[in-house]
């Protein structure tokens, strides 16, 4: 059998396995394109978790009550923990953590569009927790059904924690929505600023998105960007209206079938933002790099720690 025939047979067997719903594990043969796309996707996801910790983390000292401060601290800790889990998963596909961080800092690797914007008020913390984590869970419960075993297992754990984030964000939003006129105005202002980035969160429309078909066949993705956006809108638009908030899109309405119609986001602007041209892109990356450099002493101290092992019998 020639090399090409061998490859073709492997690919055929791989696709049949994925079609049966079996998981792919790190040591398994996989098409190079599958490995590449998955590594890129998980790397971006990991970056988004640790970059997402920045806008919210900066509000921890100014949380309005001790309970809110503790809950927000727990959420930020979860996000950084998700980053750890996901970098571990991405490592199984070839790159080291340090390479991935270097690619993040240098702008070669991307992170989610929503974390390129400032968190200007406390209401932003509520909107991020409720709607951005709400959008993330639509994406992540889908990805948990994907074909790559380590990613799928990490996402199950991540989704369980995201549900706390959404509920806490909703709790903040409801407090403001049922509060003073100033609090309601602050909340509406936050929604106005965040709506467009949130509409862009799932990525470009299917008409513009490349590669989708193959990624769906390989169960790297299970739904298109537009399908996920629609699922998110059906779930959240009625809840936003229920709180008496208005959505800053004059073309947004729900038809008799429950489909949400909306203004198509400006995808050129989206690309500018994710390529590092957003209002906070460079500041966030510089802050992340500063934290990495200033905390180098912690890593050095850990590496020098005296080697001690569990001195009790385990089994």
């Amino acid at each position, binding site marked *: 059998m020639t090399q090409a025939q061998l490859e073709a047979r492997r690919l055929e067997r791989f696709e049949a396995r994925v079609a049966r719903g079996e998981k792919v594990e790190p*040591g398994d043969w996989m098409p190079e394109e599958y490995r590449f796309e998955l590594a890129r996707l998980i790397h971006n996801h990991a970056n988004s978790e640790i970059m997402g910790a920045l806008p919210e983390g900066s509000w921890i000292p100014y949380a309005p009550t001790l309970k809110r401060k503790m809950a927000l601290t727990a959420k930020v800790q979860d996000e950084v923990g998700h980053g750890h889990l996901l970098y571990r998963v991405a490592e199984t596909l070839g790159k080291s953590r340090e390479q991935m961080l270097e690619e993040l*800092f240098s702008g070669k690797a991307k992170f989610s569009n929503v974390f390129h914007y400032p968190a200007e008020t406390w209401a932003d913390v509520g909107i991020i927790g409720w709607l951005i984590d709400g959008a993330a869970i639509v994406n992540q419960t889908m990805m948990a059904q994907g074909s790559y075993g380590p990613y799928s297992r990490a996402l199950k754990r991540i989704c369980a924690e995201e549900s706390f984030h959404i509920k806490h964000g909703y709790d903040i939003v409801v407090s403001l929505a049922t509060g003073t006129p100033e609090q309601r105005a602050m909340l509406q202002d936050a929604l106005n600023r965040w709506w467009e980035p949130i509409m862009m969160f799932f990525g470009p429309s299917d008409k513009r998105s490349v590669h989708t078909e193959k990624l769906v066949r390989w169960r790297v993705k299970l739904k298109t960007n537009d399908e996920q956006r629609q699922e998110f809108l059906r779930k959240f638009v009625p809840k936003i209206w229920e709180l008496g908030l208005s959505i800053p899109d004059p073309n947004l309405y729900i038809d008799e079938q429950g489909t949400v119609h909306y203004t198509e986001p400006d995808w050129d602007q989206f690309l500018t933002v994710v390529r590092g041209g957003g209002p906070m892109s460079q500041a966030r990356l*510089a802050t992340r790099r500063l934290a990495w450099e200033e905390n180098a002493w912690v890593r050095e101290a850990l590496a020098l720690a005296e080697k001690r092992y569990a001195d009790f019998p385990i089994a």
Partner: protein
Amino acid sequence: MARAGWKFNPYHHRIPEALERARHPVPPADTEWPVWEVFRQPERGEPHVHVGSVHAPDAQMALVLAKEQFSRREPCVQLWVVRAEAIFATPYEDADIFEPALDRTYRLAAGYKVRPRINQAASSSEEPSS
């Protein structure tokens, strides 16, 4: 409008400094520590179950990091960490070695059906009632 609020951001005053320093990046130190697989025991008497892995320079640090990562909410009475390279695994391609070569019902409780035989013996030894 309370827009001024974002200036409380503790990192905000350091952003110019961060941007300046980013122009002369320091290459990261080597922290590619070994990988440790983590096993969590939810309660005494239950088995330790694999939950993930961490990078750490030694076992003690691996336990500290594993505690932060894998027992924030889940019940836990003990964690194990094991160097990933200490684990040996059969390859998935050889999964057919686990397929039974023979009918193995002789190994299983379900392979032995006694009740029908007892019932049959009982009914055939019964005296026909006139």
